[in-house]
């Protein structure tokens, strides 16, 4: 076990899909001797890359779940979290970023900064993750690392500084020129294991000198010693390393490296850069919230001698059982320790403690602040905080976006029914953006998530991992209802037909509430409604929010104020006032101009400019609003806002309209009112299905 935390790096590898980050991780594992053979991502050799441990990932060539893995390089320990590149899985990326100290932003040398890179970069900025950029695929036709570096500056606003220039690009890519040591570096042997440093070839020398000057100008801002050394012409690589490190840690500089993971070029230098420039756990400040001090923020110290604070960031059922990945921020754990879940207050004993290498593991006895390890047999949810019970700290909760799409599932047989239930229980624990519930009226199981692909993947995993065959309905949009104006209510609930009577009168008004989903205000004076029945009114109103009377969707953004009412000494009860509130809500709701809201997605399409018109057409046909068109080189990036309801099947349409050359990403932008004619259709459909259910 590593004792010196200054030699530990917790890093993520994040990027646009198909930038080659899984291949890059695979090469890192190869050079750090965690694996002894190289496999390709899309499983041409039938084995598949190490980090894509799920069968489905291997088949689709994409990374769905981030696998944590551990390796060492020149005396440094590196925990790597491989993160998914598809936007539907961003919760995985967000979770990974939350526990990372630094990251490698992988960019395709041809595609450059694409829409997904922008999303991932924004997430990294939110979590204050210092990063290095690695321009991959320099061997591909059309690769231009200078253009990609410029895009890093212009599109992502990074102070991107080239530490290398390519030693040839496209088919001629042989290696890199290191601008710090001013040597040409090539990678020889079958898998590029042998690093050969030589003099810079004459044809690259002028460019190298120029770029070195630019690099020194940029990095000397972070070191007075380096500035002095430049003036005295006494520059050493160590001075440059130190200045780059300072700039990187302050997030005011992004070192840019390059190569080709597939062709085994540049990876070892990238590993050197990870250990040189990215922070160790001591250099990152993390805050927890003290539950005993009104959730006041407290800085955690990355020391094994303090009380334990650790965060679970990923749950996984592996073939060995349930695994819980944790990041230890403070203190230490060892086998046999008792730890406490701050959410539930439950005590748990630490059984097996392991380090993961993708889906293989290595038992360890002890782990300390800064480490990322996995525990066996811990019952918890992703995002839970554990302490040793001596302190009551919780890590700030991770932002979890609300699901925007749902799908009805129907198990094909009895056996599948059991398995679906097991699968859903596991998936919902693993992924907070994946939710499930039973529709009381239809008896169907509904799953909700962040996009079509997100749900597709889970349905597929049910089949493969749980042998659960399911039929799925059409995806449904998570519409909402809200109101547009204030309306009064004055409703009396009165029932005196045998048995105990019921009486309650509730008066007040309903109005739009922009700051949240629901607010209840009590302005009753003089005991018009007895105090004990005020919560009953609140409860009655809340019950109405689950299903709006317009089209049966949940109601958001309403404020209810009660200011008058009446009670009866004998017939008033909790239930009577709940019923009165329900009646009052229904009375006022339809008068308050209810309106349907739909999720509107920010859709960014990247396409060769020749297809710009076609892409605009496809978006316009989907009620899309064009926000901007950015042109760079031969590519256009079209930003638009499109209702989610119109986006089903868009990837097929886009592919066929652009000969497969365009791609898109989408994320929730806002909820907007549904146009009247479409809303009428939805209301009609709802009424029809309501009627058929009643029959």
């Amino acid at each position, binding site marked *: 076990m590593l004792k010196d935390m200054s030699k530990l790096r917790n890093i993520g590898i994040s990027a646009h899909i198909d930038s080659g980050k899984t291949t890059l991780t695979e090469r890192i594992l190869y050079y750090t001797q965690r694996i002894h053979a190289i496999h390709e991502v899309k499983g041409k050799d039938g084995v598949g890359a190490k980090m894509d441990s799920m069968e489905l990932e291997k088949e689709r060539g994409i990374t769905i779940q981030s696998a944590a893995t551990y390796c060492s390089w020149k005396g440094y320990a590196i925990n790597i979290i491989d993160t998914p590149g598809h936007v539907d899985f961003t919760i995985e990326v967000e979770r990974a970023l939350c526990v990372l100290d630094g990251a490698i932003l992988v960019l395709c040398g041809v595609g450059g900064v694409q829409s997904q890179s922008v999303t991932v970069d924004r997430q990294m900025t939110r979590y204050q993750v210092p990063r290095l950029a690695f321009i991959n695929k320099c061997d591909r036709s059309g690769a231009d690392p200078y253009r990609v570096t410029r895009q890093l500056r212009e599109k992502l606003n990074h102070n991107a500084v080239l530490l290398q220039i390519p030693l040839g690009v496209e088919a001629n890519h042989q290696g890199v020129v290191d601008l710090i040591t001013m040597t040409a570096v090539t990678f020889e042997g079958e898998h590029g294991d042998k690093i050969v440093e030589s003099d810079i070839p004459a044809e690259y020398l002028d460019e190298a000198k120029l770029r070195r000057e630019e690099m020194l100008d940029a990095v000397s801002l972070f070191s007075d010693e380096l500035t002095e050394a430049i003036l005295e012409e006494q520059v050493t690589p160590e001075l440059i390393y130190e200045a780059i490190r300072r700039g990187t840690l302050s997030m005011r500089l992004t070192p840019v490296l390059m190569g080709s993971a597939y062709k085994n070029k540049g990876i070892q230098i990238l590993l050197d850069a990870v250990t040189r420039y990215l922070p160790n756990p001591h250099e990152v400040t993390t805050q927890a919230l003290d539950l005993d001090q009104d959730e006041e923020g407290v800085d955690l110290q990355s020391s094994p001698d303090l009380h334990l604070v650790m965060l679970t960031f990923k749950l996984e059922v592996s073939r060995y059982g349930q695994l819980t990945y944790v990041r230890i921020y403070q203190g230490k754990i060892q086998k046999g320790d008792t730890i406490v879940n701050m959410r539930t207050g439950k005590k748990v004993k630490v059984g097996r403690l392991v380090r993961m290498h993708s889906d293989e593991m290595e038992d360890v006895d002890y782990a300390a602040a800064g480490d990322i390890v996995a525990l066996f047999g811990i019952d918890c949810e992703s995002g839970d905080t554990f302490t040793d019970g001596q302190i009551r700290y919780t890590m700030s909760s991770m932002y979890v976006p609300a699901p925007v799409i749902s799908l009805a599932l129907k198990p094909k047989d009895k056996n599948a029914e059991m398995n679906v239930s097991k699968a859903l229980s596991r998936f919902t624990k693993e992924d907070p953006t994946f939710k499930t519930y039973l529709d009381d009226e239809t008896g169907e199981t509904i799953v909700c998530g962040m996009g079509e692909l997100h749900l597709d993947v889970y349905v597929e995993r049910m089949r493969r991992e749980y042998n659960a065959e399911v039929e799925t309905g059409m995806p449904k949009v998570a519409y909402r209802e809200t109101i547009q104006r204030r309306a009064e209510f004055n409703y009396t609930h009165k029932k005196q037909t045998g048995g105990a009577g019921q009486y309650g009168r509730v008066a007040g008004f309903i109005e739009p509430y922009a700051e949240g989903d629901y607010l209840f205000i009590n302005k009753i004076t003089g005991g018009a409604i007895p105090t004990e029945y005020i919560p009953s009114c609140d409860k009655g109103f809340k019950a109405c929010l689950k299903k709006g009377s317009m089209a049966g969707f949940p109601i958001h953004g309403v404020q209810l104020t009660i200011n008058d009412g009446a009670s009866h000494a004998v017939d008033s009860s909790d239930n009577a006032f709940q019923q009165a509130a329900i009646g009052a809500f229904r009375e006022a709701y339809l008068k308050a101009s209810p309106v349907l809201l739909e999720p509107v997605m920010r859709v960014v399409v990247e396409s060769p400019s020749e297809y710009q018109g076609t892409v605009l057409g496809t978006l316009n046909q989907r009620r899309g609003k064009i926000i901007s068109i950015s042109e*760079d080189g031969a590519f256009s990036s079209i930003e638009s806002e499109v209702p989610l309801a119109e986006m089903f099947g868009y990837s097929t349409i886009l592919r066929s309209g652009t000969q497969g050359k365009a791609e898109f990403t989408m994320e929730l932008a806002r909820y907007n009112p549904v146009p009247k004619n479409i809303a009428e259709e939805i209301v009609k459909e709802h009424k029809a299905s309501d009627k058929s259910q009643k029959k």
Partner: protein
Amino acid sequence: MSIEQPAKLDLSGMIQHTLGRRLEAGELGVLLSRAGVGKTACLTHVALEHLFQGQEVVHASIRETPETVKIWYQELIKNIVAAQSLAEEETAYLQSQVETHRSILTYHQDAFSPTRMEQGIRNLKEQIGFHPSLVVLDGLDFGRVTRATLEEFQAVLKRLEVAAWMTARTHRHITTVNERGIPYPCHDLDDLFQVILALDPLPDGIRLMALKLYDRNHPEHLTISLNTQTFMLKKD
């Protein structure tokens, strides 16, 4: 396409005030100033004058990202709403109206050409029915631009039947002025512009001077003061 509820805004249109009318289709105006005086904000204000009247505008920018362009509008609208003592809710309403009527086109310096912009605007017209009456073009590097490019730009405006305003940066150390009083970088291109306005910083505002107004150079009494936050006319 027009705004359903006209904004309760009086922008005291500086262009209207200076020119007496707006640029017409095919006409080209330029705003000149040194770096940091407020060319882009002023250009954005010109666009807002059109947008608030329900007209469609293309904001083309070289080097800036769409995000940055959006921020220019958001800030200016926020300042105008505050200066006019309008209710806070007006900001969101005005922003959404602006978004409906504005399309942003951005280019890397090397990716811009008048014909490329023409194709982009034609795509917007044909595919989504967006018919701008004005193009504002920000960030064109006059140190690199050729007369041929500007002539082509003017031809494009005529073909598309739109007016355009653009910005050009002057430099303190380049004092070249032509015989008509038009400074660098427009000194040898002034025949291509129908209107040339110059912005100068004042201790408490910005001075806008007309250097060329159609066939008149340095017309008298056409100097106004603008508020630096809103680019509206100063009342005093």
